[in-house]
């Protein structure tokens, strides 16, 4: 084991020349995901459409109105244009940016006239969306499965809440006075704490190739749950903590009412998307893609597979941590149960269903686990079953997820148009 750092495992002991190949098992499937890893506002437009569809669903809380109807039509139009216009042309670029702008505008204007309950759902969508965006960086772009996003969400929540209460806590018999920091200041702290922890657990797990990170993060999740549940002096155990929402103002505007808080979540979602977009389009993105394509070759060309993968994992975990800080204020009450592994399963399904290695996929997936789930609430806990079934069927018929399928559909249409 000690000798297998970046060493191809000698699988074919028969001495065939295939031995000379670095790392076959690890070569990623060559599913034809068109423009994998590029900003694809057309997909984002698709998400908007989904959001709009959810909003106009008659069983929903939002109700139908003319504005949404108009919106719905224009999104259909945009998606149509997106499918038809090749991405690489100047018109295509224009379409991309218009689509992005439309998406942003939609998300910004959506709260007007909506009920508090709807906005609670959408606030949750924005926050969980950010978690899925981060998970997608780890899984879709860095190619490693982390089963700890819910744990990092929890660490982020507790870090942020505890540092914002100014109370006395006792850990292992030592009593400490915690500061009462402003809420905003606790967000970067939550991010950094989660990044450091993920480096700590990721470094040994990524020393050798294989699914070790999945195992380690699963164990870590259980450990985090146990600590949250049992360290009574620190976390108040299973009784949970009622979160005080009292110090979040920007430019004199109180950000805590539901409608305003939605914007905080939305901003964080945009922030997460920007971070991932930036990484993916930078030389790091190329390195990550090369690692997914053929990690043995990448390593031989100077790409430090372990470091890049670790960074992808750390940033993904950090984004989950920051989301945790916001989540705590959104739900106003935190308890260990909210951060158990079943929450990770939701995130995982969302990441896969939305489409790995795309930028819009997490948004689609995120809306599935928050918005659509809400409409399925009448099924009780069964929604996880339906959702799980849906994802299983999709993995068989469209393994690249909704976003990937859309890309494929567009490629198919454009081929028709070309010939």
């Amino acid at each position: 084991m000690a000798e297998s750092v970046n060493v191809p495992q000698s699988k074919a002991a028969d001495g065939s020349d295939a031995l000379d190949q670095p790392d076959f098992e690890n070569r990623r499937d060559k599913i034809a995901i068109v423009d994998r890893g590029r900003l694809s506002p057309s997909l984002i437009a698709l998400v908007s459409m989904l959001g709009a569809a959810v909003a106009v669903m008659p069983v929903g809380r939002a109700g139908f109105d003319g504005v949404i109807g108009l919106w719905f039509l224009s999104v259909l139009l945009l998606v149509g244009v997106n499918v038809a216009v090749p991405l690489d042309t100047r018109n295509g670029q224009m379409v991309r940016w218009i689509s992005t702008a439309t998406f942003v505008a939609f998300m910004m204007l959506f709260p007007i006239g909506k009920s508090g309950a709807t906005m609670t759902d959408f606030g949750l969508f924005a926050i969980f969306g950010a978690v899925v965006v981060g998970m997608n960086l780890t899984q879709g772009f860095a190619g490693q499965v982390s089963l700890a996003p819910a744990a990092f969400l929890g660490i982020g929540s507790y870090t942020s809440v505890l540092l914002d209460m100014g109370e006395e806590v006792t850990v292992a018999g030592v009593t400490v006075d915690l500061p009462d920091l402003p809420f905003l200041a606790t967000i970067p702290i939550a991010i950094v704490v989660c990044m450091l922890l993920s480096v700590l657990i990721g470094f040994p797990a990524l020393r050798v190739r294989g699914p070790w990170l999945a195992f380690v993060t699963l164990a870590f999740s259980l450990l985090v749950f146990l600590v949250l549940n049992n360290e009574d002096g620190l976390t108040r155990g299973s009784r949970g903590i009622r979160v005080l929402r009292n110090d979040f103002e920007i430019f004199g505007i109180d950000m805590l009412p539901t409608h305003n808080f939605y914007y905080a979540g939305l901003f964080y979602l945009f922030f997460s998307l920007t971070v991932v977009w930036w990484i993916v389009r930078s030389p790091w993105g190329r390195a990550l893609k090369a690692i997914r394509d053929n990690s043995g070759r990448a390593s031989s060309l100077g790409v430090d597979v372990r470091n890049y993968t670790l960074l992808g994992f750390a940033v993904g975990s950090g984004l989950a941590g920051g989301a945790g800080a916001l989540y705590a204020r959104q739900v106003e009450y935190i308890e260990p149960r909210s951060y158990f592994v079943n929450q990770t399963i939701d995130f995982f399904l969302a990441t896969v269903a939305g489409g790995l290695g795309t930028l819009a996929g997490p948004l689609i997936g995120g809306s599935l686990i928050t918005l659509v789930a809400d409409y399925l609430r009448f099924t009780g806990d069964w929604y996880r079953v339906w959702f799980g079934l849906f994802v299983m069927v999709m993995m068989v018929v469209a393994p690249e997820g909704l976003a990937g399928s859309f890309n494929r559909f567009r490629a198919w249409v454009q081929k028709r148009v070309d010939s």
Partner: protein
Amino acid sequence: MTKTVDNEPVVRVRNISKRFGGNQAVDDVSFDVTKGEILGVIGPNGCGKSTLFNCLLGQYRPDNGSIELDGIDVSDWSPPRRAKHGLARTFQLLQIFETMSVRDNLKTAAQEHIGSAARRLFMRPDMGLDGEVDDLIERFRMAHLADELAGNLSYGQQKLLDTAMALVSKPAVAFLDEPAGGVNLTMLADVEQQIRDLNVHDGATMVIVEHNMEFIFALAHRIVVMAEGRVLMEGTPDEVRNDPRVVEVYLGGH
């Protein structure tokens, strides 16, 4: 052909051995690589050439021996670290990034040599490599394929790309494992021409494992002959051609 070589060794290989179970694949191999030369490594199938490369470039950990680059012992370094310090390679079987464009394949091969990891995060995606990469693509006569996915190229073109990837970062020494393997006759002359060109005009230092005798005898300044994991002899192409031991290895054993 101009074969100009000065005498400063860049890479010093000492006593490399590697055993797989009961099979001594590489047995106490030593040689020097001189700056600016093309060193051929030949020997019958299974005599340990690829295993030797894997030991030198860090894919395998040798049981014994060391490799020095510019007087620094790099035997304990990881493959990416060796690559960043100027030891580049290709593998015997084609290894390219099939889902990336030709241009991106070459940029990937070049980018880790520029700046620190932190700086790379904030550099433009092309990292100012466009000119350099396009030059190389031009030289390899693949300009019309620059944006094509590497997986869509013909085998010969992929092989050429693979070789180009090892050389784009201007490594101190490039280790090429059968660059002409499986390449058809028309492409073969092309590969030979490109390699010679890189050596003569750019002063690229290369160690080349090759089966095609004509090819390697025409290119190499010096040749190491291996048999059953050991170095059988070392000399100029002419010396090797006329050595009875070499003839025996090739005609007798296998």
